[in-house]
Structures are given as structure tokens and as C-alpha cells.
């Protein structure tokens, strides 16, 4: 089946970093924040036996395909959040528009609260 000297002819995923050069391992112990737990919780629920809307595998495909630049600059939980959103939109479970609208509403609430605090 393999031709002589056959090598890998599909591109290497940007997430497939085993063996690549990297610097010192960052040792800061970061706290696990509420929004991160919430992201994980929602993904778990969406992937559970009653829903099967976003599986772990689909989410992984999400962050493996949203682009190398995003993968490079986003934090771990932000990658998972964005990937989950991409899959939900791709599968037409939600639309980008309705999410953006909900985000604007949340931002307005936050900035009102911030303004009140500042007064």
C-alpha cells in the first residue's frame, strides 16, 4: 500500500506540537476562574447523553481548525469557548447574530455596573 519513501502528505496541525522547540515551563499556578468552569460545564452538558450537541471531539476539531493565529494568542479556556461557539454556529444550533446581540446586552449590563461603582 505504501509507495517507496512515502512521507506524510497532509499538513501538520498547528496543535500537534509534540517534539517542537519551546522555552522554560511556566510554573505560575493560575486560579481556575468562574467563566472557565462555566465554559467547561456548558460543554459537558451540551455533550451529554441527553443532548449530544457538541462532543469533545467536535470541540477539538473546532480549535484545531479556527486558525493558527487564534490558537497562538488565545488562552486555553478561551480556545475551548470559541471552538464550542464555532461548532454551535456550524451546526445551526445558534446564529452568530443572536449571540452577538446577547453579548452586546451583557456588555451594556457590565458597563452600567462599572459606572455605578465608579460613582
Amino acid at each position, binding site marked *: *500500500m505504501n509507495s517507496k519513501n512515502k*512521507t*506524510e502528505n*497532509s499538513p501538520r496541525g498547528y496543535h500537534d506540537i*509534540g*517534539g517542537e522547540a519551546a522555552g522554560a515551563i511556566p510554573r505560575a499556578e493560575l486560579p481556575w476562574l468562574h467563566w472557565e468552569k462555566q465554559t467547561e460545564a456548558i460543554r459537558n452538558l451540551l455533550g451529554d447523553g441527553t443532548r449530544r450537541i457538541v462532543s469533545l*471531539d*467536535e470541540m*477539538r*476539531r473546532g480549535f484545531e481548525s479556527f486558525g493558527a493565529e487564534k490558537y497562538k494568542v488565545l488562552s486555553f479556556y478561551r480556545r475551548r469557548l470559541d471552538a464550542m461557539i464555532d461548532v454551535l454556529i456550524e451546526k445551526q444550533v445558534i446564529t452568530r447574530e443572536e449571540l452577538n446581540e446577547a453579548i452586546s446586552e451583557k456588555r451594556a449590563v457590565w458597563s452600567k455596573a462599572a459606572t455605578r461603582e465608579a460613582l
Partner: protein
Amino acid sequence: MSMAAHYRRFRPGDGVKVKHLGKSGHVRIPFYVRGKRGKIVNFCGSYLNPEDLAIGNTAGPAIDLYRVKFAQRDLWPDEEIPEHDHLVIEIYDHWLSSAESSEGRH
């Protein structure tokens, strides 16, 4: 349709080689083991293929999963590594060919 006993291709200790499947999309076999030779450590069970699950296909067959052991020296020939250091990783059946046969030889 007869329910034949499940035929498992490999046993612990068998020599295997990781295929270059040239698959794009979501796969769980890292680049650093592709084309490398190792030995079967154990059979892990049969699981749905993540390559299918990643695109929402949950109706595919379960695939045999094996743990395969590699000599670190074989994986990283440019590094200075003791000959007794190893790496063990899980490889799905369709990514493996027997290293004992002519299949997979380049």
C-alpha cells in the same frame, strides 16, 4: 448475518509501524510517531473513531485501540537519550501495520 468472534490484529509484543495515512482533519496520532516502529504493549478496548466523532458521525464502527511503546532514541535521533528510555502512546488499529511483514516497508 453471523456474529464472528472479534479478530484482534495484534498481541502484546508484536512489532508494528505507524502508517502515514495522509489524513487531514481531526486525528489523534501526532506527527512525531508517524512512520515509526514500536511494539504493542496492550489492547485498550474498542472505541468510536475520533476522526468520525469530530464531524458528528456517531454511527461508525468501534476501532481497536492499542498502547504502543517506542524507544525514545528512535523517535528523536538527534537527541542524546539513554537507550532504555521509552514513550508509550495510544494508536488506533487502522493507523498500524505489522512491522513483521512486508506491509509498510519502504
